[in-house]
């Protein structure tokens, strides 16, 4: 027996005695999976994160990037935000993992092993923008409840898998199907196995889009544990919570899915605008669908100091939920004047688009560079924090960085 394996095995044994329980499948855990059930205190090692990632919460894990960490065209694993509602599953047995399609509106429930999914259906890859519905929550006044995300709960990775629509076509769904809801193996924070930490979904039209995947790869490798290994539903352009991790079941529903975090104020906003802090009745709330237009300046990092006469090159990404970004602008005078950026087409629908611009500054001093994207429907990012809502979702206010010209 190799030393490392021996150490791992004996550690498992000791852990079992510490916890007073057996670790099921302990010996078949993936190499990098030791200790997760204990919420290892070093997320940087455990999740292989860039050292500048920001940990908002360690139970459950909620970790975000910073704008300058998101400079890559395709977000690398180490810089992708992690948003968990519950605890990462303790046991993952890839060989025996199945995905079941069931629900009121399925012709006949059916299960697939991972191998069957991979061999029975064509594989597709897309770059897909996933943004947490609560990205930017920290700016709302009065403060909204939850993890106080700033700007870094967004990423655009390359996802590979089979189309959900191909699987649903094969299984057969009834005409009254209106929604799909995922179910997964993550563990409720209370440990109650009868409760799901999160079970959300999307309307059937979104489920049947080409880009809606049942993914088994991310950035050309197995999906990392924190991002949903071995199977994740990926519905780009929608709140990332619609893209369920560790999924083992998708229910075809004849009504709006009513799983955990589909109701109350979770991932919902008032149907009609409300005053900041106003109480909103549950019946006056609706589920968030497409995310709004937004952008980030990813280079330079905020705080750059340089000499007058230098042309400053800026770059970043813009995205617009279901829409494309039609125009990208920047301002160095707090919105008095705007200049257009060079904007690339997306790699595919629902991928973020890259922009760049070269800026000359008229005199020395403190400047803020503000970025504003406009979507294909003509909607632009507001400069102020948009409409208040009880849980602080959908803050797509312009991103800005500070620079000093000396």
């Amino acid at each position, binding site marked *: 027996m190799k030393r490392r394996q021996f150490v791992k095995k004996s550690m498992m044994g000791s852990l079992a005695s*510490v916890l007073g329980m057996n670790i099921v499948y302990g010996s078949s855990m993936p190499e990098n999976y030791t200790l997760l059930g*204990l919420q290892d205190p070093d997320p940087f090692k455990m999740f292989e994160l860039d050292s500048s990632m920001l940990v908002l*919460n360690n139970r*459950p894990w909620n970790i975000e990037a910073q704008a300058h960490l998101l400079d890559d065209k395709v977000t690398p694993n180490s810089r992708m935000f992690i948003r968990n509602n519950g605890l990462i599953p303790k046991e993952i047995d890839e060989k025996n993992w199945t995905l079941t399609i069931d629900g009121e509106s399925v012709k006949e429930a059916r299960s697939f092993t991972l191998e069957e999914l991979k061999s029975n259906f064509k594989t597709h890859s897309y770059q897909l923008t996933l943004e947490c519905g609560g990205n930017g929550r920290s700016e709302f*006044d009065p*403060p909204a409840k939850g993890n106080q995300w700033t700007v870094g709960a967004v990423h655009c990775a390359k996802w590979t898998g089979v189309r959900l629509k191909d699987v649903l076509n094969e299984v057969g769904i009834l005409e009254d199907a209106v929604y799909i809801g995922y179910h997964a193996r993550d563990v409720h*924070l209370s440990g109650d196995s009868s409760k799901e930490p999160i079970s959300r979904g999307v309307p059937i039209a979104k489920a049947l889009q080409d880009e809606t995947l049942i993914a088994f790869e991310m950035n050309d490798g197995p999906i990392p544990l924190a991002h949903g290994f071995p199977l994740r539903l990926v519905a780009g352009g929608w709140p990332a919570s619609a893209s369920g991790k560790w999924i083992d079941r998708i229910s075809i529903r004849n009504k709006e899915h009513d799983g955990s975090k589909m109701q109350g104020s979770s991932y919902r906003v008032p149907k009609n605008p409300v005053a900041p802090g106003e109480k909103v009745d549950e019946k006056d709330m609706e589920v968030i669908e497409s995310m709004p237009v937004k952008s980030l300046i990813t280079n330079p*990092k905020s705080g750059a100091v*340089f000499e007058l006469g230098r042309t400053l090159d800026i770059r970043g990404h813009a995205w617009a939920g279901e829409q494309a970004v039609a125009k990208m602008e920047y301002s160095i005078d707090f919105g008095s004047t705007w200049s257009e950026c060079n904007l690339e087409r997306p790699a595919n629908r629902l991928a973020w688009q890259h922009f760049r611009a070269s800026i000359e500054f008229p005199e020395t001093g403190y400047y803020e560079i503000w970025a504003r994207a406009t979507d294909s429907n003509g909607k632009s990012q507001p400069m102020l924090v948009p409409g208040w809502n009880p849980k602080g979702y959908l803050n797509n206010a312009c991103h800005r960085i500070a620079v000093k010209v000396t």
Partner: protein
Amino acid sequence: MGFAIVLFLIAGFWLIRFLPEETASNEKKTDLNEDPNRIENGIHVRTGLVDDEGLMTVVANCTACHSAQLVTQNRMNEERWNATIRWMQETQNLWDLGDNQEIIVNYLVKNYPPIEKGRRENLKNIEWYDLDPE
């Protein structure tokens, strides 16, 4: 050997979570290295919570399922802290807090009240650096 120490620490933390409140506060007097409820600069080191009346009631009731970071990140008034507790009781298996609810909410409202931010705040904590030469 290294593993034994790690395991000892893990076991310690694990057990501490289930210690009753009184035992936990008595331990303040023990060796700092072994005291899980050490206070430094007015902060309960293990959780990051402000040291104030009701601290250990908050630690005992509010950090069993989620980390204290979910508390310290948030700012709410009395009504909304109470509503949050209600939501956790309805969906997250939080128990009936009884008389402790008032202690907890008083602590939260005093130490984690709403901060007025307006429609857009100034950029804060800017780390200035020289941009590399072109």
